[in-house]
């Protein structure tokens, strides 16, 4: 069961946002195919540590595909070759002996490289801060069953709410747009009756912040949908556009 393979990593090394960066070639021997991709990087780092060399910096945390902290381009594809999967869930058995694997950070104007494979995704937080919430102070909420919500609507909202904010959609988009990310939150809250009072303001403010952060526009390439580990659908972008147009034309918030 525990087969091993030899691979060659071409890893992006960059000291910080000001550094130019370069690919470093690291041959890795006897990779147990049961390892996850990140465990493979762990063993490379353990080896680098023993040689007194600087570890490859990469962000990760839960290692079960839900926190959204990990992610990089593996052979040019965000989160690697598997569909609906974060990088931490990718296993080395998906590679073959002798493979050369290129590993790069998310590349987007709005995501500055922090170091090596780690990038600054705080722009995504800024988009949420611009309106990705319902203004409901703690306390005083009405009874949870006070407002029935059709099951299909709740399910659609849940589909959108599954976004983990990893930024793969941005990395995959030729325009480095964060429209899929933004639309997931706008959709979730626009679908639910609790979110309607602020829907117009939310769509306008989140999109303005999206643009101001340096994300590009959506030109329907659908690359985002293809790499999204949570399979967030591009129909959410259509809903965002509808919400945005409605807000721009028919509401008082403009």
């Amino acid at each position, binding site marked *: 069961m525990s087969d091993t393979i030899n691979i060659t990593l071409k890893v992006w090394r960059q000291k910080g946002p000001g550094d130019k960066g370069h690919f470093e070639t690291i041959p890795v021997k006897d990779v147990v195919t049961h390892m996850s991709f990140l465990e493979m990087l762990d063993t490379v780092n353990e080896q680098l540590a023993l040689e007194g060399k600087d570890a490859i910096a990469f962000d990760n945390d839960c290692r079960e595909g839900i926190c959204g902290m990990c992610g990089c381009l593996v052979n040019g594809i965000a989160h690697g070759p598997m569909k609906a999967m974060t990088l931490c869930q990718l296993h080395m058995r998906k590679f073959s002996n002798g493979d050369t694997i290129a590993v790069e950070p998310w590349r987007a104007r709005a995501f500055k490289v922090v170091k090596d494979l780690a990038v600054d995704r705080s722009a995504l*937080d800024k988009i949420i801060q611009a309106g990705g919430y*319902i203004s409901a102070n703690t306390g005083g909420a009405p009874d949870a069953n006070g407002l029935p919500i059709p099951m299909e609507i709740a399910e659609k909202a*849940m589909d959108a709410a599954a976004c983990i904010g990893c930024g793969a959609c941005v990395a995959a988009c030729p325009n480095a747009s964060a429209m899929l990310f933004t639309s997931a939150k706008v959709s979730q809250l626009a679908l639910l009756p609790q979110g309607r009072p602020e829907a117009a303001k939310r769509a306008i403010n989140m999109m303005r912040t999206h643009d101001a952060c340096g994300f590009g526009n959506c030109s329907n390439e659908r690359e985002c949908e293809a790499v999204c580990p949570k399979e967030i659908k591009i129909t959410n972008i259509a809903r965002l556009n509808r919400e945005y147009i409605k807000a721009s034309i028919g509401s008082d918030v403009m």
Partner: protein
Amino acid sequence: MQLESKIPAGPLTQKWTKYRGDQKLVNPANKRKYTLICVGTGLAGSAASASLAELGYNVKTFCIQDSPRRAHSIAAQGGINAAKNYPNDGDSIWRLFYDTIKGGDFRAREGNVYRLAEVSADIIDQGVAQGIPFARDYGGLLANRSFGGAQVSRTFYARGQTGQQLLLGAYSSLSRQIATGKVKMYPRREMMDLVIVNGKARGIIVRNLITGEYESHAGDAVLLCTGGYGNVFYLSTNAESCNVGAAVKCWRKGALMANPCFTQIHPTCIPNSGDFQAKLTLMSESLRNDGRVWVPKKKGDTRRPNDIPESERWYYLEEKYPSFGNLVPRDVASRNAKYVCDAGHGVGPTGYAVYLDFSQAIQRDGKDVVQRKYGNLFDMYLNIVDDNPYETPMMIYPASHYAMGGLWVDYELQTTIPGLFALGECNFSDHGANRLGASALMQGLADGYFVIPYTIAPYLASIYGEAGSVTEDHPAFKETTKQVDALFKKLTSINGTRTPDSIHRELGKVMVDEVGMSRNEAGLKKAIDKIRELREEFWKNLRVPGSLNDYNKNVEKAHRVADYLEFAETLAIDALERAESCGCHLREESQSEEGEALRKDDKYCYVAAWEYKGFNQKPELHKEPLVFENVQLTQRSYK
């Protein structure tokens, strides 16, 4: 030291009401004079930061990840309990209280647990108002399910992502307060020490994980919401960055560490497959509803499971516990898995796994039914293990999952250091010796949304004249920073041959073998010696490459492992001192004639709170007796 729990007087059902009626308030116009420091942005930290900022306090919030949305609360799958009684099946605040305190094996305070049950319903209301898409029935009302053996359906859920949705709800409220400027958010910071001025918590030193700089932050109170210490076992279901550091630093400064030996071991995790493994993945316990647990009768049997005939399979749970069978509680399932593996019957590459077999369920109900129930879990297993559980039995093994112990707090969630509060998993307060399924989310949010906004007020009112009086230029900050810097310089100057991870892995093995689900005096003493040796090895032979002034995971891990090496010994000492079987743990000397866990209420019905006495010194035990006026203490039986 006298431990004062500050449980309000009066009947149990009136304590929280009375407390809220009697407590001092801070005038709305004065709230803006206070700055509160909140460390951690899981359910407790995000909820507290948002709620306190909504009230008008200035809040500075810190998290270790790149965004507050990534805290490990996000990984909770199952659900959240609340005494709503929507299904009309007999639930009530009292029943949730009773189930929780009984589930905790009567090692928690009645007053705390009752309050938790009381505010549970408000959490669901709050979540729905925030736009959390909980599961609903066809009529549009909220759906409930029974969880973890509860006899009522009181668990609310959002697919298998309840923790994620609740955390993102709290994160959205937090984000709104960040936008208003009432919360100042500091991501990628790790707390390095607590700053105490005139005996009161007045600030923290954090390390910027990108630049390595130390930063001082002053405030009028410090709220620790930093989660549990499950990673002391190295392999656990916790995230990479979960650590005990912040709590240990406060412990060294005088806060007490309570019941550290109460940790929860979850029976249905995907087993370890080699030394490279960084974490264990939890699968929902619901799998045991239809799966049958077995191991080969022959020791060291290396045949593939499907080649082992029925007569040579040992269904040890069904045999030992005929009435509960594969559905025995978590701790019983966990330790029996350990026993059969220790005895040489284990399977898989390490010999530390047992089979969970669905062939009978598939035969009985058809593959479709099984797929509908467990499809996502089977897919997850297939991806990680590369084996198809529809065709060959799954392999499972227990893993550390949750920490019931933590910093000692009173009813107001205040530690023994005035002005230092601990919320959520990082305190010890509500789950006793064992936590019920779907109760972790409930406690984190209860503390953050509905308890701390009330219970912090009396302290803040008491220091009114001093609000904002301590700033970052106070000498205590400089002094503490100097100590932190000295520690890091020491860690990076040893230049030995061992990485922090390799020592952590060894520590984990000691903890799992001797201090985990089943323990005895000799083993615990051995473990304590071994931990001391490892600590010595660490300070003699550590190697931390790379720069201090940089994004450097080796530096981060090094000081976390240093903290684990100190904390682990106290955990083992606590386990040694508590010579009873309690909650998740079997103390081998304390068993009934049938070999079942025996609690000893006459001797150990107390909270064990440990005071730090210095490096390499034995901590001092303080006992808070537990008084039960409303419930009868009963022993469990699963025969």
